[in-house]
């Protein structure tokens, strides 16, 4: 598609339920990122994918959070047994990767989706 697409745009769920958030990146972008944006907290890094593998999962807040990416394209972020503190906007971004100075690096431009607003009651 023309841009990064995320679904659902809004999700209201009850505490303890599982939720799945989907991200469809820009075609051809090999890097895919998940961030969480809470009021006053800025963007919290969760995980990023290089192709289908996740070199860095350090930002996932707990083992209730998991993510996968298949076919080098669509990614799903799953939150199990949701808690009220999970309420936030979950942002997905994709990017081209470029080789700079001998290492694969980011070109610098992340293209963000509109986000999925999660409310846990």
């Amino acid at each position, binding site marked *: 598609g023309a841009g990064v697409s995320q679904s659902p745009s809004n999700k209201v769920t009850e505490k303890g339920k599982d939720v799945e958030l989907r991200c469809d990146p820009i075609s051809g972008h090999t890097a895919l990122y998940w961030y969480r944006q809470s009021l006053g907290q800025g963007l919290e890094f969760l995980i990023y994918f290089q192709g289908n593998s996740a070199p860095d999962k350090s930002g996932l807040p707990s083992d209730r959070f998991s993510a996968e990416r298949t076919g080098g394209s669509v990614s799903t972020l799953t939150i199990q047994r949701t808690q009220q503190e999970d309420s936030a906007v979950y942002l997905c971004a994709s990017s081209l*990767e470029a080789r700079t100075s001998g290492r694969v690096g980011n070109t*610098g431009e992340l293209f963000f989706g509109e986000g999925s607003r999660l409310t846990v009651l």
Partner: protein
Amino acid sequence: AQSVSQHNHHVILSEAASLELGCNYSYGGTVNLFWYVQYPGQHLQLLLKYFSGDPLVKGIKGFEAEFIKSKFSFNLRKPSVQWSDTAEYFCAVNPPYSSASKIIFGSGTRLSIRP
């Protein structure tokens, strides 16, 4: 802990005032630096970036930023702001010695411009 700091949470200016938003990072070594902007109701977009070379970087819409290595800073500036600059501004860093593509964002600065 290593981080990206934006000390100004909310800045209020009148039109035509000059702007400087602070950004400091605590990573040693070579970093790549970015400023992103989120206009009301829109998604985040890149304003400018610094990888190497001239430490004064010019971006879109008249914004610029200066990388000062000795101060671990990458402050965003604009000589004369407009009402349309009302937005949230995020500084971001691609840290060294990490997964090459990891990008860490600061907490953001909300800029409000009085017409």
